[in-house]
């Protein structure tokens, strides 16, 4: 029992130090938000008019859930970069030489990521409200949507940890993260209805976790959701979101933990 208590206490200390970074390097959060706002403006005002929604509805309401998911997916890169930074600066070595719970470095890190992204999500929602995005369903559904998004964030954080522990430098973490996550968020229904994609890409987009999350969020927030096609993920976005998130966690959590243990060389 005291072991568990120590693990939690150590995890909180690590979360604290990771969150301290946010006000100390405000540029990190500011640019993450500005990047998302740039996507909002680009799609809402530049491409939006050219993208008709099957079944009608406001493109801006359609867009915002896609932006939420995209931003939270990109957060994995931030995680990867700061883990890689801790590795190269020797901080991970210092932690490993201390009589602390071994799990705390990763559990504290990923927990901090959830708190951080709650903040990011809040700012994005305010931005969305300003350009005409609305929550049209009940409060309960809204919170279910938010919980789903944060659960997804948690899985992305573990992907980020795994990536950060696997690369030799901070720059590589940045590049690899961008190279993987950027196309994944675009090969989805986040910005355009999947029906508008070439036939070859449609199944890929439909089975993309980002699409499931976006579709589920649209459904729970009561935003236009033309994703509903006759494919299985299209018909069950909420179920598929849970399945995807659990699967990603089941893959990347053990991988990251194994990678961390393997630092022993």
């Amino acid at each position, binding site marked *: 029992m005291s072991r568990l208590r*120590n693990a939690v*206490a*150590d995890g909180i*200390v690590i979360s*604290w*130090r990771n969150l*301290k*970074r946010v006000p*100390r*390097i405000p540029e990190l959060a500011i640019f993450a938000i500005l990047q998302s706002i740039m996507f909002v403006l680009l799609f809402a005002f530049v491409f939006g008019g050219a993208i008709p929604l099957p079944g009608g509805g406001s493109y801006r309401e359609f867009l915002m859930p896609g932006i939420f998911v995209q931003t939270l997916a990109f957060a994995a890169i931030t995680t990867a970069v700061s883990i890689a930074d801790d*590795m*190269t*600066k*020797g*901080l*991970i*070595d*210092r*932690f*490993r*030489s*201390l*009589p*602390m719970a071994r799990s*705390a470095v990763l559990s504290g890190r990923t927990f901090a990521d959830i708190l951080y992204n709650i903040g990011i999500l809040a700012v994005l929602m305010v931005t969305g409200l300003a350009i005409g995005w609305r929550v049209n369903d009940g409060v309960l559904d809204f919170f279910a949507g938010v919980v789903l998004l944060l659960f997804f964030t948690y899985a992305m954080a573990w992907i980020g940890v795994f990536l950060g522990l696997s690369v*030799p430098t901070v720059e590589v973490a940045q590049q690899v993260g961008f190279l993987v996550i950027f196309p994944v968020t675009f090969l989805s229904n986040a910005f355009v209805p999947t029906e508008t994609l070439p036939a070859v890409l449609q199944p890929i987009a439909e089975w993309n976790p980002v699409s499931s999350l976006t579709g589920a969020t649209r459904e729970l927030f009561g935003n236009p959701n033309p994703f509903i096609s006759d494919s299985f993920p299209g018909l069950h976005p909420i179920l598929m979101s849970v399945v995807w998130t659990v699967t990603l966690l089941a893959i990347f959590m053990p991988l990251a933990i194994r990678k961390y243990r393997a*630092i*022993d*060389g």
Partner: protein
Amino acid sequence: MAMIETEGLVKVYHSRGSEVRALDGLDLEVREGTVLGLLGPNGAGKTTTVRILATLLRADAGRATIAGLDVARDAQAVRRLIGLSGQYAAIDENLTGRENLWMFGRLYQIGSAAAKRRATELLVQFDLENAGDRVAKTYSGGMRRRLDLAAALIGRPTLLFLDEPTTGLDPRSRLGMWDVIRGQVRAGTTVLLTTQYLEEADALADEIAVVDAGKIIARGTADELKTQVGGERIEIVVHDRDLLHRAAQVAAPDGSATVDEHTRRLTVTAEGGAQQLVDVVLRLGEAQIRVDDVGLRRPTLDDVFLALTGHAAERPATDDETTTARKKGR
């Protein structure tokens, strides 16, 4: 009682198909309350030894204990006893000095209030009290090293590892660092210090172990090693190449001077220190031999290596231990 005991430690790094034997049967014993200086060039195995003893790295073969605890099996118990301060100041740049110390104190399982008190204590002791509430990013190199060392001491360790504590520091910061380390030694901490500088091992260590190619090749007090090496040296650069051999005869009538024709340099071992230098200079003056340069020089790591191994300290860059360790471990 032995604080550190190792037996036949072996560590092999594999990188891109090639094998580097960083440790090749290293035996070491450090008694409680003493300072051992691990002296050797880059790639000799110093950092690997420290990383194994500090539970960061597993040895491929051999055994290592700290205060009787096996570093591999009882790692967590070992961590309660040790403090580690490395070559790369491992502090969180985005936290203040005080926050860094508090955090490491908490992770050392010290209560929050006690960790705060201890942090303040260390900031004062390490002359960082004015900078304590500034973000560590703004610290100078010397301040970072001091904070790093303070972080290593937060849990009052019985054994302190100092991995090249002054590499890259300017001379003034180096002397400051030495003072701080000496204070710690006076307080009774056992210290394992790695260094590339004979001078540093001499200044801080009770005993020196010379490492080469993953093995201890010599061990003794600084004086014992220096006797082996032949103490200080007088170096003379003779102006006129034709007079070089006569000058050698004058400077060391017993014929013990070594002559380097190319640089017109004579080296004479100087057991008699400064007085011998004065005598030599006077004799050269009487013989009317013009000199361009003359000086007394302490033996360097190179001299030690030359005397002990017959080869110079520099080894090819292919087996640079620190690069391998970083790739593997960081």
